[in-house]
């Protein structure tokens, strides 16, 4: 027990208690069942209005469920930021939207459009700033480290150079418009920069549990990316460029398995720490939608691991991260339900795609 230990314990005690109380506001099995049984959108909105989504559903057209979900996430980020001692924990979840905005920016740039309608308001940096940086209007110096890395990686990839020292150069941008880009490679570069920022942030927070969860997350991403590469015959080069290096499973393993049948993959993976996940999945491994099923099982596995491991933590960032993960999941599940409902999909098909504990 050191002083710094006490310090963390003190600052997080308040935050964790608030989070525990806030966890009561997560949608429970009952509410989800009611939403699933609802026959009309208006009914779903009414049910959501009774929950902590009430702010999100107010003043939004019933059909614009995407706006509702975005607003709810916005609210949650704002809410948690009020009391979390280390904002990096919230940034862990907002960086995803910086990544998204970077993808929009660079694609729009290459196409010569403005990307309107695709920007996300949830990032740590405003979309407008990212756009200005991507168009070389401003340098990267004013950005937080992770955004600088993201933008820098993208600009480098598009051979626009990391600006800041050079003044905005329109000719470079014009050249870009004439030259086809490879969006897959661009995404691979940006995704890697994103995960590297996550890795740094988790290291900075200094939580071994979050480090473990990030590794798990990366491994799951790599596994599905591997299977998708195999299924689409993208080739080893694509596998290598899509591989995210911050997991426990090494690239060599995937390279070795690339030309093997799926049974070998199952066998090899069940010797790793993911044996329970893989053995559950192996029954589906021959199906056409096998990868999607692994994605779904992986999401569920991740959530379980996360809530199980952070339940015993009372002084630290883990419960807060865990809450945000749960909230993110809940919002994704709501999206699944709302989109499915709006398009007349039957309840069973919707239910099997949910990843929360109520599924």
């Amino acid at each position, binding site marked *: 027990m050191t002083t710094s230990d006490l310090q963390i314990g003190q600052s997080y005690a308040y935050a964790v208690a608030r989070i525990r109380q806030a966890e009561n506001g997560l949608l429970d099995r009952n509410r989800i069942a009611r939403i699933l049984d609802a026959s009309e959108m208006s009914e779903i909105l009414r049910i959501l209005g009774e929950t902590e989504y009430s702010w999100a559903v107010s003043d939004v057209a019933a059909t614009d469920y995407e706006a509702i979900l975005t607003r709810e996430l916005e609210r949650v980020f704002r809410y948690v930021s009020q009391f979390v001692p280390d904002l990096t924990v919230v940034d862990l979840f907002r960086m995803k939207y910086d990544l*998204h905005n970077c993808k929009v920016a660079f694609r729009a740039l290459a196409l010569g459009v403005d*990307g309107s309608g695709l920007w996300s308001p949830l990032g740590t940096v405003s979309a407008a700033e990212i756009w200005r940086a991507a168009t070389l209007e401003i340098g990267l110096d004013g950005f937080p480290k992770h955004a600088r890395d993201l933008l820098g990686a993208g600009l480098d990839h598009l051979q626009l150079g990391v600006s800041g020292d050079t003044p905005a150069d329109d000719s470079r941008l014009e050249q870009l418009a004439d030259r086809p880009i490879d969006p*897959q490679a661009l*995404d*691979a570069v940006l995704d890697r920069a*994103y995960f590297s920022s996550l890795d740094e942030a988790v290291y900075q927070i200094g939580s071994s549990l979050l480090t473990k969860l990030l590794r798990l997350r990366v491994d799951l991403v790599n596994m599905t990316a591997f299977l998708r590469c195999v299924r689409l*015959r993208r080739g080893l080069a694509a596998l290598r460029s*899509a591989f*995210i290096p911050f997991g426990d499973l090494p690239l060599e393993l995937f390279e070795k398995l690339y030309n093997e049948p799926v049974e070998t993959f199952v066998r090899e993976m069940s010797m790793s720490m993911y044996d329970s996940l893989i053995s559950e999945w192996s029954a589906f491994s021959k199906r056409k939608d096998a990868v999607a099923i692994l994605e779904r099982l992986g999401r569920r596995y991740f959530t379980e691991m996360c809530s199980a491991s952070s339940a015993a933590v009372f002084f630290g960032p883990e419960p807060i991260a865990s809450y945000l993960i749960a909230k993110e999941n809940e919002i994704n599940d709501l999206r699944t339900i709302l989109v499915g409902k709006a398009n007349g999909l039957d309840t069973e098909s919707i239910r099997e795609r949910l990843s929360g504990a109520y599924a």
Partner: protein
Amino acid sequence: MELRVSPTRMQLLQLKRKLAMARRGHKLLKDKRDELMRQFMELVESVRELRLEVEGKLSRAMKDFLIARMQMSSSEIGVSVLYPTRVLDFEVAESSTMGVTVPQFNPSDEGDQASGESSEMYPYGLAMTSAELDTAIDSLASVMPLLLRLAEREKSAELLAEEIERTRRRVNALEYVLIPKLEETIKFITMKLEEVERGNLTRLMKVKEMVRGGGV
């Protein structure tokens, strides 16, 4: 028009030749019309089948897209497919069916893309997208060649229908206008000629009678 002709034998001969030709033309056009009809019916049948298939596949693709949409937000999907990588080149050739020029769309590099660089088709990275999106893109891509063929067939059917309409009008014109008129004119000339003949005969008889009477 038929009445303005001079009722001469020469003219009659000419008209008769014209009529024979019109009749032959009429028969040929009728045959052509029937054949066009037959081909049109066949084409329509195949278009109908293709259309059903395309519609089935399109609704499958829509459903796949919906499922992908259930896993990803609309802006995530939006940015994933914002930058198109796949350019579908096709050549427009012409072929002729019964004298009708119909278009033919030949996708130029479908084959090599499928073998080597099929991943070009997915314009997004793997880490942040769902595998369901791959499926949706696959479904849509598999409809594309069919859509192309459907467009080709439907245009052909349209052109054939126009040609049939034109041929039918010609057949009708021959059958109900030209041939009857020719026949009438011929009849008129024949009658006129016969009348002249009869007049001549009468005159001859009269002259004969006068010659016989005068001789008494």
